[in-house]
């Protein structure tokens, strides 16, 4: 028992006790404790300012060093736009025809009301998890479990919300599981993060039948099952379809439509309503 009278051991025990107190309070209040919120309130604006400065210099750097790549991309995008313009004409007539047919069949149009909060991404930190911090929190109405997306597609969900910042777990993280559908075949599945694929910026579409009709290039969207994510949000595109090592089922590798590594801003979906 002499060891417990040593000053350094008492100090270590103090640290452990303080740490457990923090953990306990976090669990009790179901989110960040008072001190973490206070520290976050001070640090977050600094991080936001610094990321803006970083973006500014990054853009200047990009202008000089990525000029040729941007020029090529610009030419390619112009060609795509002209191709899309031609397709748009066909789509418009198809949409008009579709609405007429819906009216004829007395079907209700699918309506999706999303209440979104635009936020900036201010930090990303972990090699082992795919998560990042955004610059808005409970003061802006953001709550734990809100889904996060961009105009292109799904990004993840809010795992922790403080006063002026929130933690987002991306769809690439191992703990993330999203109810998903293959758009072409309506095959239901689960899009989940995988440790092996996380570093490559990809995720896994699991629990597919071995004989499932999955093709490279198929779009994957949220199914809305479970109610956590709105239905019909694009997740990504199938890049490979492979059998699981156990042979019972197969999985597909998805390239997410949103490049999580390059995110600067996102929308947090505070509420949504789906009616069919």
């Amino acid at each position, binding site marked *: 028992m002499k060891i417990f009278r040593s000053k*350094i051991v008492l100090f270590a025990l103090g640290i452990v006790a303080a*740490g457990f107190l923090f953990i306990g309070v976090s669990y009790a209040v179901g989110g960040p404790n008072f001190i973490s919120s206070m520290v976050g309130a001070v640090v977050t604006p600094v991080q936001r300012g610094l990321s803006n400065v970083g973006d500014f210099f990054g853009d200047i750097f990009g202008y000089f060093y990525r000029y040729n790549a941007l020029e090529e991309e610009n030419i390619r995008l112009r060609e795509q736009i002209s191709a899309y313009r031609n397709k748009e004409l066909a789509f418009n007539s198809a949409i008009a025809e579709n609405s007429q047919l819906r009216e004829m069949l007395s079907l209700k149009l699918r309506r999706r009301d999303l209440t979104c909060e635009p936020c900036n991404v201010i*930090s990303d930190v972990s090699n082992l998890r795919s998560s*990042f911090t955004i610059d808005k929190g409970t003061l802006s109405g953001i709550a734990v479990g809100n889904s996060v997306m961009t105009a292109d597609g799904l990004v993840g969900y809010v795992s922790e919300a403080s006063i002026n910042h929130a933690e987002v777990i991306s769809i690439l993280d191992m703990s993330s599981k999203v109810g998903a559908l293959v758009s072409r075949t309506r095959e239901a599945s689960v899009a989940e993060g995988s440790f092996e694929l996380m570093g490559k910026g990809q995720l896994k579409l699991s629990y597919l039948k071995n004989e499932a009709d999955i093709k490279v290039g198929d779009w994957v969207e949220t199914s809305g099952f479970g109610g956590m994510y709105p239905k019909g949000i694009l997740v990504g595109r199938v890049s490979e379809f492979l059998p699981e090592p156990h042979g019972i089922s197969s999985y597909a590798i998805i390239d997410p439509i949103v490049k999580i590594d390059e995110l600067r801003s996102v929308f947090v979906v505070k509420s949504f309503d789906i009616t069919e």
Partner: protein
Amino acid sequence: MVDRKNKIWKYCALALTLLALFLLQTTRAISPRILGCFLDLIPFFIAAVALFEGPYTAGCLGFAAGLLLGLCSPSPDGLLAIYYGLLGIALGVYGSIYMRPVLPSCLVLGFLGSFFRDLVAYVFYFALVYKASLLHYTTDFFISAAMSILPAILIYFWVRRLNRRFMEKNENEG
């Protein structure tokens, strides 16, 4: 009185250094990233503080570092604070008995600090829950450690400079 005032200034300088390292390590568009891996500077900072200032300062700054890192991590608040707090104490005690405050000691202790953190995380979480591949995990760890070595050297010299400056100040004023 002068000694106490200098100590306060020294702790403020160390705390500001910690904050700057945290911002450098975590802020988007500033933090460098190679093959998806990030800088991991905090263990090296704690190792340097442990070597020069001893276990108590290293423990306190480690605890604060853990709290800060908890802001940007999905792990529960306080868990990293316990780890880094105890790491500071352990490195401080070990360093004062078995090591001299030189650069290789700082690099070795910092490396061990991040190695044990990742080992615990791997064994008790990533391997246990997600059956994560050891090879992939190890590769990420070594890339991150390799990225951090150069800034870790700068951190060592900065902490040493702070230590010497305030020691000289104490001697001159005392």
